[in-house]
């Protein structure tokens, strides 16, 4: 829960410029490649070198070295896997549950809808951080608790969007038309409601992924994420913070990478969102 992490999914923005989108896409591709095969870019992220501790960025160490003499750039590259995976899994949880519950709420009877909507509210009553803290209390600090916490905390966002969308689609003329063709309820849901509800979800998920990564960084910063020595971005920021006075690069450079990733995801997501909106408008 960093500040931006609960950035509402509903925010729509101007069209990002073509160059920006290209750059963002490029960056994301790099990040993905790094996440899949980090060794392409960097060596062992855990190799400590007590003799070269907290050295400033140089040709040998692009992002300098950290408090154990590890290559910060290498850790950032390897961290892509952790951070992206956390984000992806958390978002997948959120989208999965949110889709199911949102669809249920949108299709269900008034009272069931009300009950479900209230439970989304109750979940939203916990700021993400508090929810995450509770999970940490239950599961202990670590990736699992973090992922579940972020997934659950961001779930209501998706559930609400899906519910609203379901309500809209339910009312849509083409559903009435399908009734005119004698479609059964299940058929209606599967052929018309679900596909049309699903439409905006992937795009929301891409933008939401950025949020999840930010959220993970914030929680790791508080020590609730993957444990050292995992090169997770948030954890790196957290570790580096103690050396801000003497080695800004251990904090700022990984931070810039996090920011770039989130910006890229947002830019690409919004581009797709506009595509989508343009298509359905």
């Amino acid at each position, binding site marked *: 829960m960093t500040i931006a992490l609960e950035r509402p999914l509903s925010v729509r923005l101007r069209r990002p410029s073509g160059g920006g989108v290209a750059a963002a896409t490029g960056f994301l591709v790099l990040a993905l490649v790094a996440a899949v095969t980090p060794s392409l870019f960097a060596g062992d992220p855990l190799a*400590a070198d007590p003799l070269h501790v907290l050295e400033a960025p140089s040709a040998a160490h692009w992002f300098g070295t950290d408090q*154990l003499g590890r290559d910060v750039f290498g850790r950032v590259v390897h961290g892509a896997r952790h951070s992206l995976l956390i984000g992806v899994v958390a978002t997948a949880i959120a989208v999965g549950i949110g889709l199911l519950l949102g669809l249920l709420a949108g299709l269900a009877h008034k009272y069931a809808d009300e009950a479900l909507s209230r439970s989304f509210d109750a979940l939203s009553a916990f700021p993400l951080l508090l929810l995450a803290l509770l999970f940490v209390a239950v599961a202990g600090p670590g990736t699992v608790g973090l992922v579940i916490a972020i997934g659950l905390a961001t779930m209501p966002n998706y559930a609400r969007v899906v519910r609203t969308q379901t309500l809209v689609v339910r009312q849509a003329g083409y559903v009435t038309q399908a009734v005119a063709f004698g479609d059964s309820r299940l058929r209606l849901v599967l052929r018309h409601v679900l596909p049309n509800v699903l439409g905006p979800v992937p795009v929301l998920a891409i933008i939401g992924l950025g949020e999840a990564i930010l959220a993970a960084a914030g929680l790791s910063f508080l*020590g609730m994420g993957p444990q050292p*020595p995992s090169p997770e971005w948030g954890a790196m920021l957290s570790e580096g913070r103690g050396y801000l006075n003497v*080695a800004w690069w251990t904090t700022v450079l990984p931070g810039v990478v996090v920011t770039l990733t989130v910006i890229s995801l947002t830019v690409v997501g919004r581009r797709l969102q506009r595509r989508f909106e343009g298509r359905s408008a």
Partner: protein
Amino acid sequence: GGTDSAAAGEPVSGGALTWGIETEPITLNPHQYAQAKARLLVWNNFESLLTHDDKGGYVPWLASGYEASADGLTYTVKLRTGVTFSDGTTFDAAAVKANIDQLLADGYAPAVAAVQLKNLKSVDVVDASTVKYNLTRPDVLILDFLSSPQGAIVSPKSLKEAKNLKAGGTDLAGTGPFVLDRYTPGQEIHYKKNPGYRDRPAYLDEVTYRFLKESSVRVGALTSGQVQVIEGVPATDQAQITGNPSLTLSKGLNSGSAYSYYFNVTHAPFDDIKVRQAFRDALDVDTVLKGVYRGTATRAWSVIGPTSPLYDKSLEGTYGGNAERANATLDAAGWNTRDADGYRVKDGKRLTVRLVQSAPFVRDRREILAQAVQAAVKQSAGIDLQVSVVDQGTATAALEKGEYEVFDNSRADTDAGAALNLLLASNGAINRLGVQDKGIDGLLDKGQAAQDATSRAAVYRDLQQKVIADDSLILPLYAPADQIAASKKVGGLQFEPTAGVPGSAYTVWLSK
């Protein structure tokens, strides 16, 4: 030892000092004291009967003198007269007894009752200025209790009337040179001079301690002049202080036990002494310390800190730091194959050892040190040290269930013997080694009963030889130290004798 206060000139009275400290005390009741870092606060407004001298001996403080009976079962303490609590009540033998009664009260201070006062039979008020402590068995550590914060004397009136007795606060009165007059949780604690102090009053009119948890924030606050003193300066930031002509930096080595890794001998692999030796050999402690603490840490060779009179200097340089030997030992012990990740394997099991650290109590870059050790033992000997920093509950549970192979700890007890009782005795409260050794227990008992310093030191020397050299039970790493950084205008800053932690504000002055 004191700090370099030459620049601050002669002591002057007056002024208000702001001091940035790392730890906010959980409680302000000295009886409930559990954090070494809170010690510098406790002594501002509370005092105990005895205190330490530079060499680890005891000197009277609120007491005017004490004597032990020959059998070591009775301690008679003479009290100062004319001392009053800040709430106006008088300090006397009855007050002392009231404090002990309170400490033994159900649910008030279970740890003190169970550990420090376990050998106390009764307390007798002989007269208004004399108290007699009767023990069930000889126990020199009673003196340590009398000089500890838990042994501090609180006004019996306030003990009865305090709103939140266990949390302490402004309504708990002591006899110290300062009076606690304001506590803003999460922010700061404020003392003002106790004008009616029996002795030389404090130099400072007021002193404010601000809780600055982040080291970078503490250092920043000092360098930008918002506080005049800070404690707890991490190694990486020390250069910033020493490089600044208007600041000073001083260090004190803590008393008690050194920061060490204790091997869990109750199960594999550390039930095998060869593996324990190999682990010590695999690690070049000096290099690791140099990397992590940038050359500011003092290497420990024994479980007892080097400043303690009980320290066995002969252990220095006798073991460890030999990767070749470590590998040979491990090969001999059957850990002679390696897996894909380069770790040693025996019978299909990786040579994995787990270190569980409790997040709220990790300090002093010990999690980093753990990572450095982790990297080192992997590189040099293929040992898989798994470090996890978890919450308190999880940590306690893991320790209870024996789901660990390495236990890390340092204790800041002023008397190292007290620490060893907890750590090494078969029934020790924090015996995480899991050793059940008659020999060790015998030595500990002997040490606790020995009244004369040299014979006591001899007993502990034998003990150290056994657990460090002979049995390889422990891997001492470094002697915990405290740092004080201050503006050159501040004088009289000192570390507590023996304890080695920053002292109270009593001796401190602020030059104009």
